[in-house]
């Protein structure tokens, strides 16, 4: 038997063993386990703000930790910083490349980052008298799909080159390369304790990584298409994913498997983005069909919908204090709901 044949045989045997171990742990699922939990109330949120200012599709948004400012990125070639309370634009950052796919706010509020088809992550300082580019992180060989700051000195990126990278912002160099996906990485989410992160990719897998040792610890299967959105559950022991297969799923980290799927036969649009309410009870998932559906994360039922955009909802974000949800769309507007 050739070496590759031998390896394939061994891999299949290990996959069978892992599936058996998962099955042995699968003595129930989330909906059944939570059957005694009172249903979530029907959620009817109103649009409180419509933020107008971008001139083209919005691809990403991210809240600042002050729960008031937020950054949005559009293929009009700009990052806009908004004061969500007043609805005013606080800053505009012109981008060298208009093909932006992601933006991020540093926890300190001092820096923002963006990246996209230029394969780079550019970091800007908002606190200098004139906004300055402080670093251009240039080593990915594919598009930048997502970026998240750990601090003013470290940022994590995910890329179409199938890797995620932890960068040192003082040197501009890669500290750690996380390589294990075999498809474009589309999204990432940091754990609440900042020791790990999860990534979702076009190989239909979500992976859990240890930030410090660079190792992939767990792989979650079940989706049948690209995973476009991912978020740690606020309790830190589960993750929620959203996919082009039109479903969202919760994967339980300690049971190492899917425990509930959020889907509806009538829904045949891919999930583009998602975020969670403060307790994790509600999942806000943006879809290609212009809506953002609200799911009860414990029961698997749809409990509301945010309708109002005239094009795909491309990004969704709940601020740290959980006071609202923001949706951004290809219709060029951002809406704030509560």
């Amino acid at each position, binding site marked *: 038997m050739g070496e590759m044949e031998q*390896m394939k045989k061994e891999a299949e045997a290990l996959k069978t063993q892992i599936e058996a171990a998962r099955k042995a742990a699968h003595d*129930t699922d989330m909906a059944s386990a939570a059957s005694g939990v009172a249903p979530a109330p029907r959620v009817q949120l109103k649009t409180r703000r419509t933020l107008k200012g971008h001139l083209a599709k919005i691809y990403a948004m991210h809240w600042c930790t002050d729960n008031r400012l937020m950054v949005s990125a559009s293929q009009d070639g700009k990052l806009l910083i908004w004061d969500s309370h007043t609805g005013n634009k606080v800053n505009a950052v012109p981008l060298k490349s208009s093909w932006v796919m992601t933006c991020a706010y540093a926890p300190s509020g001092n820096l923002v980052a963006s990246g996209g088809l230029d394969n780079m992550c550019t970091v800007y300082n908002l606190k200098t008298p004139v906004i300055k580019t402080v670093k251009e992180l240039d080593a990915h060989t594919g598009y930048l799909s997502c970026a998240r700051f750990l601090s003013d000195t470290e940022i994590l990126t995910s890329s179409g080159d199938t890797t995620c990278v932890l960068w040192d912002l003082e040197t501009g160099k890669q500290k750690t390369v996380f390589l294990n996906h*075999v498809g474009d990485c589309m999204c990432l989410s940091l754990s609440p304790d900042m020791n790990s992160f999860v990534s979702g990719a076009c190989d239909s897998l979500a992976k859990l990584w240890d930030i410090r040792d660079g190792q992939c610890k767990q792989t979650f299967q079940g989706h049948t298409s690209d995973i476009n959105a991912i978020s740690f559950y606020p309790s830190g022991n589960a993750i929620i994913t959203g996919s082009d297969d039109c479903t969202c799923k919760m994967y339980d980290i300690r049971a190492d498997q899917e425990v509930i799927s959020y889907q509806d036969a009538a829904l045949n649009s891919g999930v583009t983005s998602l975020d969670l*309410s403060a307790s994790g009870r*509600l999942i806000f998932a943006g879809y290609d069909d212009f809506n953002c559906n609200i799911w009860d994360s414990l029961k698997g039922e749809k409990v509301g919908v945010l309708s109002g955009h005239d094009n795909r909802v491309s990004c969704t974000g709940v601020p740290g204090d959980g006071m609202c949800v923001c949706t951004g769309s290809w219709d060029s507007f951002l809406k704030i709901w509560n």
Partner: protein
Amino acid sequence: MARDMSDKDILKMELEQLQKEVKNTREPVSKTTKEIYEWVEAQAAEDPLIKGVPEDKNPFKEKGGCIITCDFLWQN
């Protein structure tokens, strides 16, 4: 990056990962999901998007019509 890797190297990477993951411990779903929903239930009482935000405490409440009050000092 996986794109530059040969099929053999990709297979080797996948195999090594499976060899690591097969050793992971897996807790019963009944135990792990219970901890999750108990955590959520404890937090849900304070979740603004579930319990609602009172109008007077809502920083995003719609800006209503403004009543501009001016005190004119008429001078002769």
